[in-house]
């Protein structure tokens, strides 16, 4: 079970309270987690990564285990602690401009 924490605006948009818990088949990566997230909450498609290129939006960051994973390849495995549900995968609105 993967735990995902979304920023307030996206929780409001998708009518989510608290953490999201997702089942992810296969390797747990940014890409597979976001695929599962967008499948569960289609309204989030386009809000975290681009519709076409699937690149992370510039002011969105991915944190986990006190690391900034934003610049990791989308297909890179996420830390074991995220894959096993010990730690959440954090989607964060960048501080820039806020």
């Amino acid at each position, binding site marked *: 079970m993967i735990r995902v924490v979304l920023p307030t605006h996206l929780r409001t948009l998708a009518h989510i309270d608290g953490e999201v818990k997702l089942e992810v088949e296969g390797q747990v990566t940014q890409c597979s987690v976001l695929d599962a997230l967008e499948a569960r909450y289609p309204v989030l498609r386009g809000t*975290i990564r681009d519709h076409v290129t699937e690149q992370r939006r510039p002011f969105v960051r991915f944190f986990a285990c006190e690391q900034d994973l934003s610049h990791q390849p989308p297909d890179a495995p996420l830390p074991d602690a995220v894959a096993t549900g010990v730690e959440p995968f954090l989607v964060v609105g960048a501080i820039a401009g806020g």
Partner: protein
Amino acid sequence: MSRVRVLVGTRKGAFILASDGKREKWNVSGPHFAGWETYHLKGSPADPNRLYASQTSGWFGQIIQRSSDGGKTWEAPGGGMTMVPGEMPRGESNKFVYDTTPETGKPLTTHQWYDGTQHPWEFKRVWHLEPSLTDPNTVYAGVEDAALFRSTDRGQTWQELAGLRGHGTGPKWQAGAGGMCLHTILIDPSNPARIYIAISAAGAFRTDDAGKTWKPINRGLKSQYIPDPNAEVGHCVHRIALHRSRPNVLFMQKHWDVMRSEDAGDSWHEVSGNLPTDFGFVIDVHAHEPETIYVVPIKSDSEHYPPEGKLRVYRSRTGGNEWQALTKGLPQRDCYVNVLRDAMAVDSLDSCGVYFGTTGGQVYASADAGDSWAPIVRDLPAVLSVEVQTLP
């Protein structure tokens, strides 16, 4: 008795202001989409309870919202699931993808960047939503980088009318200071196949075949800030307005200059007349008097506030040239707000109501065609857009 509903888009959400026909007491609801920029929201003339809104964010991109109950509740219509064989379900959400297919004309890939080089078109946000005059399920979207999209399924999916970018001058378009936005969409009420649009900083364009082909309509515009002041494209048009009884007569607030066309935009002439400055953003037409028009002069393009710190609406009852300052109820000292391009509208009650919003968060209303004004609200976030619905 008739009612009015004022739809206000702001930097931090949308607000709906409602009143009866007297327009004295107002009920304020909102913020809707709290914390998100709401560039524009507008109701369908064919079904006034059908509203569309553009909710946008520098962080999280573009969301289209739709209401079927006059703004009491909202839903994101693009949030449906799609299935691709062999793959897991995908959400479509609010997808604005530029059309680059050969069938619709290519290359549609670049426009002029600030440094003169060519730059790829990149979708940023929806500036303006224009519902069809007859079909509540059809709505047009003017977007940045400039393009026109249309949805025929209540805002769920969007297709570009690519003939606009593909007609030939697209590579010459370049962004104004506020971005290269398609901000004005006017549908001819007597001929739905005729649509006018305006882009900053490319100019005005018209289609006579429902969006398949387009032509620039900028002859007569003169802009000193571009290399050829009389160029076919490159003019920073801020807003266009028409009266439904005479859709060939257009009024334009350009970056500088207030302009008028008698021939559906084929030619323009200046009607700035005695305005204290002819820079500004908004322009609108009285609901019942097609020669009565309104502007809000702004000091200059580098000083986006009213001249002398006095907030004045100017009204012409002669279709331009002769202007009268309307000041009653408006601040006449120390006022340094701006009134942005989509932030003025009129209702169609017997005594025409005029409304505008400011970057200071005020929405002013006049129930007597501009003779006197009063704020409906004073302390909203900066106002980006104002639309009005006149309801039975």
